[in-house]
């Protein structure tokens, strides 16, 4: 299993898109933090709320994590590399498990990198304008830890979706449409049917709750994590069954 995980990590790092992930994280987080600090009045910069928002800009890692999870699975089908992969490891469920571990590890690395950029940009800047810093305080620290873990969950969700859908384009487009449109429509529908409460159990509402940022309609943290894991397990099981049954031609 360790060998399979190492192989999966090597697969990601030996194609150029690996650098694209890193560049997007550093550039996006750096610009977002700078824009936020630059556009905020001096007095507000020292508040816990503002600095907690700064930490949340690291949320870019969530989107990259699910894209990584989907591609780590579907690239194999797209380029036919699934053939040599399954020749080395005929137990297909182990390959998927290795991909899930590798995707989660890399995604958590993305989250850490993103938080590092927040710290590198914000700490000297805030210090130079004499604002009090709370970035290392317990409250913000807990939020950051929850965010790091939720990035791992998004990566696992990506692998599960990839194993179910298998077509790279369909999985990526479908997931983005679902996140930005599908669930919003469903939430509206649930409202019409007077079952508003069910909306919080939708997969990406649960994942939202699991990043610890909270929100009125969302589940609280631990139920959010539990429901997210439930969706990941369900899709993962379907994905493993589909992949095991598939004829690799």
């Amino acid at each position, binding site marked *: 299993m360790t060998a399979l995980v190492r192989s999966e990590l*090597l697969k990601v790092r030996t194609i150029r898109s690996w650098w694209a992930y890193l560049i997007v994280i550093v550039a996006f987080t750096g610009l977002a933090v700078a824009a936020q600090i630059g556009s905020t009045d001096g007095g507000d910069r020292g508040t816990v709320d503002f600095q907690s928002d700064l930490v949340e800009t690291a949320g870019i890692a969530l989107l990259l994590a699910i894209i990584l999870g989907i591609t780590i699975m579907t690239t194999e089908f797209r380029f*036919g590399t699934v*053939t040599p992969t399954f020749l*080395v490891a*005929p137990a297909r469920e182990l390959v998927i498990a290795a991909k899930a571990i590798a995707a989660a590890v890399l995604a958590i690395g993305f989250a850490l990198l993103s938080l590092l950029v927040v710290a590198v940009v914000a700490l000297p800047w805030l210090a130079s304008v004499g604002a009090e810093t709370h970035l290392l305080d317990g409250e913000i620290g807990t939020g950051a830890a929850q965010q790091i873990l939720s990035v791992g969950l998004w990566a696992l969700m990506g692998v599960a979706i990839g194993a179910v859908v298998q077509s790279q384009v369909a999985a990526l487009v479908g997931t983005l449409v679902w996140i930005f449109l599908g669930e919003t429509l469903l939430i509206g529908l649930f409202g019409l049917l007077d079952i508003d409460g069910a909306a919080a159990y939708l997969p990406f509402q649960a994942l939202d709750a699991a990043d610890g940022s909270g929100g009125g309609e969302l589940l609280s943290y631990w139920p959010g994590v539990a429901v997210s894991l439930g969706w990941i397990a369900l899709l993962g099981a379907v994905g493993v069954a589909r992949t095991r049954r598939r004829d*690799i031609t």
Partner: protein
Amino acid sequence: MIEVASLSKRFGKTQAVSDLSFRVEPGTITGFLGPNGAGKSTTLRSVLGLVHPDAGGATVLGVPYRELDRPLHRVGAVLEASEVHPGRSGRNHLRVLAAAAGIPRSRVEEVLALVELSTAAKRRVKGYSLGMRQRLGLATALLGDPEVLVLDEPANGLDPAGVRWLRDLLRSLAAEGRTILVSSHVLAEVAQTVDRVVIIHRGALVQQASIAEVLAGAQGATRVRSPDAQRLRELIAAQGGTVTDVDDRTFATDLPPERIGKVAAANGIVLHELTVERATLEEVFLELTGGETTQ
């Protein structure tokens, strides 16, 4: 070594393989032949546990492929030269698979040298020619130094020098005692290399034999030329032979030359020519596979 037993597989409306059985003996190079679409790839993928047969199955080294421990060390396979990520270098492609199989990096350099790809190893596969991809595929198959090799159309896309290189490589691999199953839709590519052939057509077995047996089994015609051809024709027809005219004085028959000579001597007929026309392997192949091969 490799045993296929009553294998059947249908894709949608197409019966790709039907009730196919054959054996590949240890230490031999076996050619797996048939026209395009005969079911060769489906059979090989079933042998390697990639395709689930509808009925029957296959074993490699006595067990189904999926049950092999450390399969890359037992069986090496190349199925399609294109099954490589185009953005990855040849060396990294091999390293990824070596990592999964617990094979040291030094072995990657060894197989790169063996297939003469060391200088191109750091280039991305996107820029490889088909021949280079085929050689990368062979390097993949050889990573685990396996005792069995399964190669699907490894000569596809190779130039004549490449085909010759492949032939020499396969011979030297077989000389080391390995068992090789190599498929092709072009008999000439493998005829000089293989010991035995398994010929399939429309998913079913046509023949499983040594090259010599295939040739011996082929009906060789006897060509006869005589100034008294007309009378000899009648005598042969009376003996139950079929006669095909070539020209006034020449004809071909299915009777062996011994019988013709005897008939001619007994009737005092002069012969100018009495030769056996061996069917070539290519002709036999075309005949066995219904002449549908394109090359």
